[in-house]
């Protein structure tokens, strides 16, 4: 039991930490590619300065995403060897393809982009950042297809003789409705994250009236990005809620702490009650909303935890099939709440910075913009904690219990060692990375281009070097 808890803590810590960097990398790489495209087409020096400034922050962040990603792949074999044995036939394929198709693309072309400023033609150099950005998006698709198979196993059968799940239809795994839903939801969330990041840094500079020629367009770009992406997050979130109700009704019931089946079901914004749900002390409810979220109809029936638990015992035998209810309930609300708040900021921001606005942008908005930086990161983390904890006690829904996935040969001191080592290392890196990000964000963009003497025959230093 101890090993299971420690391995789960390690998975949670390294995954949430890794996912602080990934969404920003994905969103920002596309935004930087867009900025460079604007420079390529207009030759406007402001866009070049934007590309270089945001590109540098992208690189600092990218490095952290890469190094923490290695642990992600290896810990399945290290801490979850029985899981790996059981699902490798299905789960390994998207992982391997992610490496071959996506990781090579992003790492190789990002290397070319960083060091290729004076080695490649303008168009080729632009293509490099786009290919790296495409690589990050592809990588998200494959890893989410793998994860979605755990949420909603399709295209596979269980081979009792070999004691494992086996792939029978790879197309079904790649086109899993859960994977498509998760991909769209995650990618739009990545753009909210990158947008809020660009907004925060821009707002900080604009509040001090610095580099306005670079940060005003940056802020507008950020606001438009966040607005569009937030709408996308809402729409795809709605789609996912319905899929979840259909595929993992227990997760939906836990998300609402709904103990008994009701129709129509209300959505509670805030509830204080006893943990087993027998008493509700205080609650703010919006009638019929849960019915709508879950089924698409305002009168839909939503199944309760007690009924689902009884049904699960019928199917899988005795046991506890409920996830941690308070954790699921709150992370679900925090995800939605933080996400909506980010969207709201973009609406307000776009109104305040609209072209015909007579008054200058009020200072409080800059403060809000800077503070808003926590929102996407908190929402992303809460979202993953919700979706992973909500699936418990299953590692693969209805197929393999999490408890049956841990490595039998790994001892408690070993798991504890790795948990401590990685947590301390990640903590230290968080400090360093935070320091560098803040320093570089505050430093601002490079100065406008001055006529560069390129005609000399002597040795010319590289444009970019470590």
């Amino acid at each position, binding site marked *: 039991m101890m090993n299971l808890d420690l391995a789960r803590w390690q998975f949670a810590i390294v995954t949430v930490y890794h996912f602080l960097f990934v969404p920003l990398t994905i969103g920002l790489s596309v935004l930087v590619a867009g900025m460079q495209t604007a420079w390529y087409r207009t030759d406007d020096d402001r866009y070049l300065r934007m590309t270089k400034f945001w590109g540098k922050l992208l690189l600092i962040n990218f490095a952290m995403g890469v190094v923490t990603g290695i642990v992600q792949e290896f810990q399945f074999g290290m801490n979850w060897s029985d899981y790996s044995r059981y699902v490798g036939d299905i789960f*390994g394929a998207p*992982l*391997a393809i992610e490496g071959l198709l996506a*990781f090579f693309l992003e790492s190789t072309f990002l290397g070319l982009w960083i060091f290729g400023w004076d080695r490649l033609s303008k168009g080729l150099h632009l293509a490099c950042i786009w290919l790296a950005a495409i690589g990050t998006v592809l990588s998200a698709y494959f890893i989410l297809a793998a994860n979605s198979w755990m949420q909603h196993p399709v295209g596979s059968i269980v081979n009792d003789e070999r004691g*494992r799940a086996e792939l029978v239809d790879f197309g079904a795994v790649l086109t899993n409705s859960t994977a498509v839903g998760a991909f769209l939801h995650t990618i739009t969330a990545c753009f909210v994250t990158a947008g809020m990041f660009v907004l925060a840094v821009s707002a900080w500079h604009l509040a001090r009236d610095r580099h306005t020629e670079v940060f005003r367009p940056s802020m507008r770009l950020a606001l438009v990005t966040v607005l569009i992406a937030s709408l996308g997050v809402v729409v795809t979130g709605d789609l996912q809620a319905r899929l979840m109700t259909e595929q993992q009704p227990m997760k939906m019931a836990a998300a609402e702490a709904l103990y008994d089946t009701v129709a129509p079901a209300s959505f509670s914004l805030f509830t204080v009650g006893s943990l087993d749900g027998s008493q509700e002390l205080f609650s703010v409810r919006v009638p019929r909303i849960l019915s709508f979220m879950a089924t698409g109809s305002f009168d839909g029936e939503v199944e309760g935890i007690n009924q689902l638990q009884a049904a699960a015992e019928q199917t899988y035998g005795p046991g506890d099939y409920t996830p941690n209810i308070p954790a699921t309930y709150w992370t679900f609300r925090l995800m939605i709440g933080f996400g909506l708040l980010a969207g709201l900021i973009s609406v307000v921001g776009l109104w305040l910075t609209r072209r015909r606005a007579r008054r200058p942008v009020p200072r409080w908005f800059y403060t809000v913009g800077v503070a808003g930086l926590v929102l996407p990161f908190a929402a992303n983390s809460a979202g993953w904690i919700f979706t992973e904890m909500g699936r418990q006690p299953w590692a693969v829904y209805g197929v393999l219990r999490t408890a049956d996935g841990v490595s039998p040969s790994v001892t408690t001191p070993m798991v504890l060692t790795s948990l401590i080592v990685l947590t301390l290392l990640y903590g230290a890196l968080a400090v360093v990375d935070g320091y560098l990000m803040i320093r570089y964000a505050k430093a601002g963009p490079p100065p406008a281009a001055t006529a560069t003497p390129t005609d000399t025959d002597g040795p010319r230093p590289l444009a970019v070097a*470590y």
Partner: protein
Amino acid sequence: MALTDIWFLLIAVLWTGYFVLEGFDFGVGMLLPFVGRTEKDRRVAINTIGPVWDGNEVWLLVAGGATFAAFPEWYASLFSGFFLALLLILVALIVRGVAFEFRGKIDSDRWRRNWDIGIVVGSTVPALLWGVAFANIVAGVPLDADHEFTGSLLTLLNPYALLGGLATLSLFALHGAVFLSLKTHGDVRTRSRALAQRAGLASVVLGGGFLVWTFLAHGPFWTVVPVLVAAAALIGAVLANARAREGWAFLLTATAIVAVTVTLFGSLYPDVLPSSTDPAFSLNTTNAASTPYTLQIMTWVAVVFTPVVLAYQSWTFWVFRRRIGAADIPAASGLPARNGRKDEPVR
């Protein structure tokens, strides 16, 4: 040829690619304090691998992913069995990766020196431990009937494995030194060439010893070919390096690494992880493999995309083919060490 054999071969190819490519950037990392007496020289050394080290490392990720997909039992037994060794490798790779990216970001000697330690240690530890790991894979480890590893970290630190570790360490040092002398001019080149001679000698002794031991203890008869190729290539590399034929020297060290990997995988086949407890408990290409259906899909993906990856990675090496020296290195571009009142960047 069965699909399982094809995948054994493909995984061998991925590891070969990984050792040939990351091998030289490990070498460059290890030799950093020896070739880079001045800050400029250290930057020259680091920039020879700057554009490519990350792409090189992806070979490892793909090798890991491919093992997971094609031989899940191998992946599970190996990664859980070699737990602490892998943890060390992971920590080393993490520190090394951020060190490359972060060292130039702050313009301070202390900052850079600390990250340089990260680069050196982060390059040396995996270079040593990959050899230890592969020697153990070839020699076999205690596996029970469920293919679970029953040994401890000490089981892995046997004389044969330690020699394997020293062999990869010296080989990668040589490979890195030769790469450095191929990619630089000036002081770094001179020092790298001198270092390559010493690393070459160590490689011939340690790598040769390891290969002979492997051949005698585990290798089928035909592996005498790659063993001899490795020996000839190593000696040839040392000679070519002495005559300043760096391109040839690099080609030869790469050949030696290929030959060593071929020897190791050739000695392993058809097992993928032999059991030293009872040969009946060994994992082999059949009982560790995924279903033919999965292997088929993966084969198609590999056949279509591997040439594409090889093409653009080769192109990267072509783009950055020029030698660099101290004169090519621009002034430090990092921000000043202390955040004073002035927030304006210094460039």
